[in-house]
């Protein structure tokens, strides 16, 4: 009894594990249980059970409910999809005037609204795009195709790359001086010289529309949530789900609702990039001290001024992190958006990946990263810009950037026209370097890959075989061997020990949803891969992070690497692993580990670095060794923060596992991919996405509850 009092927690855990394993071994695998249940949708196996709900027939293999729950939510995806189609095609037809055929037409309200949104979006994207690389659609939007045929001069010519480069240089200089100017110029020159100009500008035009809209939307929602507790309450779970849902899962609904093309890509991007902006806006506004608000009010601000001159600027640190997030997310989405028709680098990258041309894919990936970093730096510099009230400037000084730019335009035009005489074979390199005429490092990359392949083939193969046979297969089998009751006991028991009955119910609810969906087995496979990935990246991340946190320089370097890796489109990670390990679970898992190690490392470093220096000094004074200091002082204090990093690691890992379907995994991701090429897959995609999101949210709930408790105990502030 004494012992139980002393370590009540340990006993709870022990008890939980005993029950869990008891159930696992006590419940036998039912006869005829097969893992792949997907066929159920097609075949008419007499062993199938079925039920009918909302006029939808669901067929499934019935097992003992202790082993697997029946898919009572099987009707949901189909129902969601039918509702979507109904809303879109039959609900509330309205009349509207069609200028083309000069008569009234009827169209369902929602469809009309979505068409209008699509058209507006597309117009904006085309507008920016055609300014950058030329085109006719913008002009056509205001005139007509016939008119443009009659007046070919009105076609927008596009800006020579030299001028855009000079413009970027000048803008960089104006915003933040020499460093940014040079970086801008190098980025643009790189893009141009490597023949990525057109796709890059296409991507840029798409980001320049999506990013500001996400920013504004996020800001508005954030402000709204700040002002109204009810809105915040409603928004919070939605944001949670949106941030943990794999991106593919909502591509189909978007495709159904908005069609395909750049606008659909932009909408998907906006949906994806807005949540962090909302979060950070809210966070920032919450941190503004009431006195500052009062000072604003006493200065006579009206609501509008208070918001824009006091609240938002004061919360700017967090809002700017939001901007950074938005830009990063927008470019991270570039590839995924190309699934539903967005043009540009993402599409090129995907194409190169499809052809397994690693060098090309890499070059497109680098361009995406460069643009991301450039936009991020520029927006930050712009936000931090200061006005000098004392400078007594002459006309020239005040307008010098404008003058320089005009100069650059003139010079660029002269160059371009000289170029048109000089380059004979039809490509004017001073105007635009065509896609296939730039330099390419592809042979170099390919040679590198071949070399690695030839040199390490045997080693890799042995490693691969060992990993699959001795680690992955047993682990996967173990996950699938879990009876559903045992899973519930484990999950809810953990919830109970960590956060009491409330946590237990929350995670239990999440799990129940998945268990009642038709994809429980698949979810187990996803869980197995994510678990493996999280454990491995957690260990690596914490070790690397602890080493890096030991001094300032290494901290900076490692954090820099993390930043860069994070801006890489996630698809890029699949290339090298696929080259090295082929199409096996190993490849996916390695990609998962690399990708998910980023947050683990980052949070470890941040956690360790934020331990108050006074404590370090105190520790040094009492004569501890650096190792002792790390283990006895830094770790315990930083641990809650590190756990939040593990939280992120889980989200990242799930994300990559789902993308892994491209290599050919057999989990939820594969189904999401399948749903992508099914016109009726919208509902399926969403529900599958929810399943993934709920795995993430259940873990999130556990870790967060634990970390907060722990932090309170340690007297650290709440993040």
């Amino acid at each position, binding site marked *: 009894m004494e012992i139980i009092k002393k370590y009540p927690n340990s006993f709870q855990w022990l008890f939980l594990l005993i029950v869990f394993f008891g159930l696992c071994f006590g419940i036998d695998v039912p006869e005829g249980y097969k893992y792949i249940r997907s066929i159920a949708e097609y075949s008419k196996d007499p062993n199938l059970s079925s039920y009918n709900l909302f006029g939808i027939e669901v067929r499934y293999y019935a097992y003992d409910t202790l082993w697997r729950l029946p898919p009572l939510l099987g009707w949901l995806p189909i129902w969601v999809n039918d509702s979507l189609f109904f809303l879109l095609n039959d609900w509330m037809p309205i009349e509207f005037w069609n200028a083309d055929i000069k008569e009234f037409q009827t169209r369902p309200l929602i469809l009309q609204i979505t068409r209008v949104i699509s*058209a507006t979006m597309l117009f904006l994207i085309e507008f920016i795009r055609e300014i950058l690389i030329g085109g006719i659609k913008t002009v056509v939007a205001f005139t007509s195709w016939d008119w443009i045929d009659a007046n070919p001069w009105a076609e927008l010519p596009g800006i020579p790359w030299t001028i855009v480069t000079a413009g970027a240089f000048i803008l960089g200089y104006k915003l933040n001086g020499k460093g940014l100017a040079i970086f801008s110029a190098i980025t643009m020159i790189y893009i141009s010289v490597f023949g990525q100009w057109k796709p890059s500008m296409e991507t840029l035009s798409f980001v320049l529309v999506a990013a500001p809209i996400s920013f504004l939307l996020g800001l508005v929602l954030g402000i709204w949530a700040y002002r109204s507790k009810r809105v915040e309450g409603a928004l919070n779970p939605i944001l949670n789900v949106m941030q943990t849902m794999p991106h593919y899962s909502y591509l189909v609904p978007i495709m159904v609702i908005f069609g395909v093309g750049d606008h659909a890509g932009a909408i998907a991007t906006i949906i994806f990039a807005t949540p962090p902006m909302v979060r950070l806006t809210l966070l920032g506004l919450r941190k503004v001290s009431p006195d500052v608000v009062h000072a604003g009010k006493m200065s006579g601000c009206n609501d509008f001024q208070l918001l824009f001159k006091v609240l938002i600027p004061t919360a700017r640190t967090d809002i700017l992190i939001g901007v950074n997030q938005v830009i990063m997310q927008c470019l991270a989405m570039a590839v995924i958006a190309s699934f539903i*028709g967005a043009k540009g680098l993402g599409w090129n990258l995907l194409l190169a990946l499809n052809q397994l041309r690693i060098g090309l894919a890499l070059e497109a990936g680098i361009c995406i990263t460069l643009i991301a970093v450039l936009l991020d730096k520029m927006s930050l510099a712009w936000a931090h810009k200061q006005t000098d009230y004392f400078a007594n400037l002459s006309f020239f000084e005040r307008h010098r950037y404008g003058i320089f730019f005009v100069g650059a335009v003139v010079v660029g035009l002269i160059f371009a026209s000289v170029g048109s005489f000089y380059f004979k074979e039809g490509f004017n390199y001073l105007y635009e370097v065509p896609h296939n005429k730039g330099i390419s490092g592809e042979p170099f990359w390919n040679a590198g890959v071949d070399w690695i392949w030839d040199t390490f083939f045997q080693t890799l193969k042995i490693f691969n075989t060992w990993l699959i046979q001795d680690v992955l297969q047993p682990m996967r089998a173990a996950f699938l061997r879990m009876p559903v009751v045992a899973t519930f006991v484990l999950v809810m028991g953990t919830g109970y020990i960590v956060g009491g009955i409330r946590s237990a119910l929350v995670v239990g609810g999440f799990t129940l949803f998945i268990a009642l969906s038709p994809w429980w087995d698949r979810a187990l496979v996803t869980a197995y891969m994510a678990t493996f990935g999280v454990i491995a990246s957690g260990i690596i991340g914490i070790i690397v992070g602890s080493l890096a946190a030991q001094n300032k320089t290494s901290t900076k370097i490692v954090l820099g690497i993390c930043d860069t890796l994070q801006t890489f489109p996630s698809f890029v990670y699949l290339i090298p692993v696929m080259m090295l390990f082929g199409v096996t679970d190993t490849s996916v898992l390695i990609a998962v580990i690399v990708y998910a190690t980023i947050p683990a490392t980052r949070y470890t470093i941040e956690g360790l670095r934020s331990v108050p220096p006074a404590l370090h000094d105190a520790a040094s004074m009492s004569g501890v060794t650096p190792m002792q200091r790390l283990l006895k002082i830094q770790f315990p204090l930083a641990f809650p923060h590190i756990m939040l990093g593990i939280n992120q690691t889980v989200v990242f890992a799930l994300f990559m596992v789902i993308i892994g379907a491209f290599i050919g995994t057999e989990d939820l991701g594969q189904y999401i991919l*399948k749903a992508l090429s099914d016109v009726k897959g919208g509902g399926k995609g969403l529900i599958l996405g929810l399943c993934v999101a709920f795995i993430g949210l259940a873990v999130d709930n556990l870790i967060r509850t634990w970390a907060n408790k722990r932090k309170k105990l340690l007297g650290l502030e709440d993040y």
Partner: protein
Amino acid sequence: MKNTINYTAKLISVFLLILTIFFVEAKADKSGVIKIAIHNWSSQLVGATVIGELMKKVDEKVEYVLMDSQTVYQSMADGDIDIVHEIWETQFGESYNKALSGGGIEEILTHDAVTRMGWWYPEYVEKECPGLPEWKALNKCSSIFARTDSNGKGVYIGGPVEWSQHDAERIKALGMNFVVKSLSSAGSIWKELDQAVKNEKPIVVFNWSPNFIGAKYKGKFVDFPKHDPKCISDASWGINPKKLYDCDNPINGYLKLAVNDDFKKNHPKGYKLIKHMNFSNSDIDKMANYVDTGGLAIPEAAEEWLKDHKDKWFIWIK
């Protein structure tokens, strides 16, 4: 009072804004540009570019839209896409027919090219597995196709899941000792194939004809029980009375070209062009070859094809 005026003013401005957007929409929606669907395999990409270039020659404006190769038919029926030019019977027949029966699509032509898709192996495999290309023979030596992660079952390297091939169903229906490994792209199938061939390792992959692979490596398609339309609609048909898909894909499949049914009205010149055009087996073959073995970029490959086949397309655009 003042409030009411304010409110009305706001309402009017919002209304005006919406009007402008409608205006822009009406204009932008005008079908001035031909939207050609492109997918994720080389011959299709090159072919689409070829069609696009030819369209330009007859004064049409084109735009390429990257689309999923299954959902594209519904999009075409809805008017989001104008042309789909490689409709392979085996792969897309189902989705295509569904959309076709819903209306909104006009079928233009069937290419001369005859298509086949299915399980394919390089010739040397026959030495280790006598009796090929019969599927029963393949099933007997399934173990030589096993991999570390397949639990002793043979591995069949399949295409992207979107190229729905019903391979898993076929394996089930025929009771084969195989599993499907779906890769993300054609490129990764060829990579697998290249590696296997290099080491003379047994392999069976998803392949189709016409394709450049036939020119690169010698090999054969596996023969399953002969295809019959009933096989995919009636479970009682075939050797497994309880399941569908207990048969092969059609071995003389069609390759079709279809357009949105407003195409004729909106693009008479373009319509005339596609009415006349036609791709043969060797065209499709070559288009893939330029890219997959020649390493050309898509536009270059299209250019190359146009250069080599002037006499052919010259008649189409006349």
